[in-house]
């Protein structure tokens, strides 16, 4: 077979965006054109668009940080299993605060303080990062802050950056133009110059139309003050909204983003409640947890587009139960998991289920008092054999994560 005449647009715009992040990182070496194209915001957004629209949650992974490795700070060292990413760091306290579109917000702690010394937005895949300017209120950086959540914001209701522009470019200039040129006997050289033109047109369109596209951080302090950080302007501002005083119950520290709304699980003893913050209206509302939820080890996560609550309950004779609920679109809770877990063999250990994988396996956190923490994968079908994924003296919270090329420095001119 003779080699087909292959236009660069097929490869650059239609094959590369369909590749996983890790392959793309290697393929930077293929040729100079690929390396420069892979570094453009246009590519980052087409790739992200593909990840989040075609089978949206297929590429979702779980990410957390552990303090075991000897690599440099903010180095992209990951240990991967099919759905898990572990990032390592050598300073004692890098904690993942939150993650969106492949960007991760990380707080840096100095050994004994309860405040983050610095905050950074980091892309673990490319290793790029940006240190944030200091907040107006130092309480924003408190480790006990009620919430610290990174999110993507755009006046367009879409969750994906610049989808509108990309589709418009596709319709107006790209596919149609390509078809006509080829029928007239166009060559691949045309394709190449069109590719360049598109990158330029995209940059201009972004400049002109989308000044409000931004990555933001919502921070709620222990005083119930609400602050928002903007990556575009690298600055903080205070919001009028505050939480009601009657809600002075301590946060249990789990918060997650869904549909432009942040969800926090708060509570003490038997009073758990989910607080929802609407990013658009900037108002707080409350959601009740399932009535059968108890008082032990409740945790919240947004997994594959749904809110999930997990509870780990001790019953008689050391047997434990794992229960999970998922909130459906209509706001009703449905129990999805209800299994018993074998009794503790070693009494110095505490177990907390964290995440239910698609194949039914669970990711659990084992705390060995005075020794450290271990993250394991547990297969309920195989007599609960624990498969250790990583261990360390401290391990940050788990976050769902996708590997993208989104740059934390995209707004720096």
């Amino acid at each position, binding site marked *: 077979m003779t080699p087909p005449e292959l236009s660069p647009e097929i490869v650059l715009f*239609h094959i590369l965006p369909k590749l996983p992040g890790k392959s793309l990182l290697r393929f930077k070496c293929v040729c100079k054109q690929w390396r420069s194209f892979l570094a453009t915001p246009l590519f980052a957004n087409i790739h992200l668009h593909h990840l989040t629209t075609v089978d949206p949650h297929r590429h979702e992974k779980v990410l957390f940080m552990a303090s075991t490795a000897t690599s440099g700070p903010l180095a992209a060292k990951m240990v991967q299993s099919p759905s898990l990413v572990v990032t390592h760091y050598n300073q004692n306290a890098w904690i993942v605060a939150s993650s969106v579109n492949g960007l991760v917000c990380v707080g840096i702690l100095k050994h004994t303080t309860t405040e983050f010394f610095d905050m950074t937005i980091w892309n673990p895949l490319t290793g790029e990062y940006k240190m944030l300017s200091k907040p107006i209120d130092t309480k924003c950086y408190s480790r006990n802050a009620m919430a610290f959540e990174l999110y993507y914001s755009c006046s367009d209701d879409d969750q994906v950056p610049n989808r509108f522009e990309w589709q418009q470019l596709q319709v107006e200039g790209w596919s149609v133009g390509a078809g006509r040129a080829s029928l007239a006997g166009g060559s691949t050289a045309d394709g190449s110059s069109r590719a360049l033109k598109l990158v330029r047109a995209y940059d201009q369109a972004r400049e002109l139309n989308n000044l409000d596209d931004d990555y933001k951080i919502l921070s709620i302090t222990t005083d119930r003050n609400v602050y928002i950080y903007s990556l575009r302007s690298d600055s903080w501002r205070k919001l009028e909204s505050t939480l009601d005083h009657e809600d002075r119950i301590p946060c249990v520290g789990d918060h997650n983003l869904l549909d432009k709304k942040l969800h926090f699980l708060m509570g003490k003893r038997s009073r758990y409640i989910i607080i929802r913050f609407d990013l658009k209206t900037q108002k707080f509302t409350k959601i009740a947890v399932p009535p059968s939820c108890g008082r032990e080890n409740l945790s919240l996560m947004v997994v594959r587009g749904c809110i999930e609550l997990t509870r780990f309950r001790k019953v008689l004779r050391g047997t434990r139960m794992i229960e999970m609920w998922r909130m459906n679109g209509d706001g009703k809770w449905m129990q999805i998991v209800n299994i018993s877990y074998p009794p503790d063999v070693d009494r110095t250990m505490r177990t907390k289920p964290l995440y239910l994988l698609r194949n039914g396996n669970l990711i659990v956190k084992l705390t060995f008092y005075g020794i450290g923490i271990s993250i394991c994968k547990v297969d309920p079908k195989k007599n609960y054999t624990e498969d250790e994924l990583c261990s360390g003296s401290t391990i940050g919270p788990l976050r769902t994560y996708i590997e993208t090329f989104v740059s934390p420095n995209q707004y720096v001119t």
Partner: protein
Amino acid sequence: MSKKTLTLMSKDKQLFNIEEHLAVQSVTIRNMVKEDGASSVIPLPRVDSETLALVIEYLNRQQAPEEDEDYVKKFVDERGEIPTLLELAQAALDLDIKKLMDAACMKVADLIKDFTLEEVREALRIENDRTPEEEKAIRDEFQWAF
């Protein structure tokens, strides 16, 4: 009334007939029909006859809309050779048949994702324009991905 038929001509001057209402799944052909009625033969100077035969087979499919996604996936799966898929993707791009192009490109991406750099260059016919030193520098930077 008989259905209107269009004639497409491949790079190697072979003629293919296809009913107009099926052919206009291609946005490019639809636009041509709209513009000048396209009564004569439509030349496709970049598409060879084997690829055009595949495209015609795809356009002639008789699938219920809800099974279409699975059909197009199976259609490209059965033609799992990278050169064939690339030809098909290129023809689908030129003719603006989005579903077919996306499926063919997805399959290529799936096939090459674990390839070595050399294999990728060979499969996509890309010339290596880097010196070994440059390549090593990039490799070192992202060593964990290799």
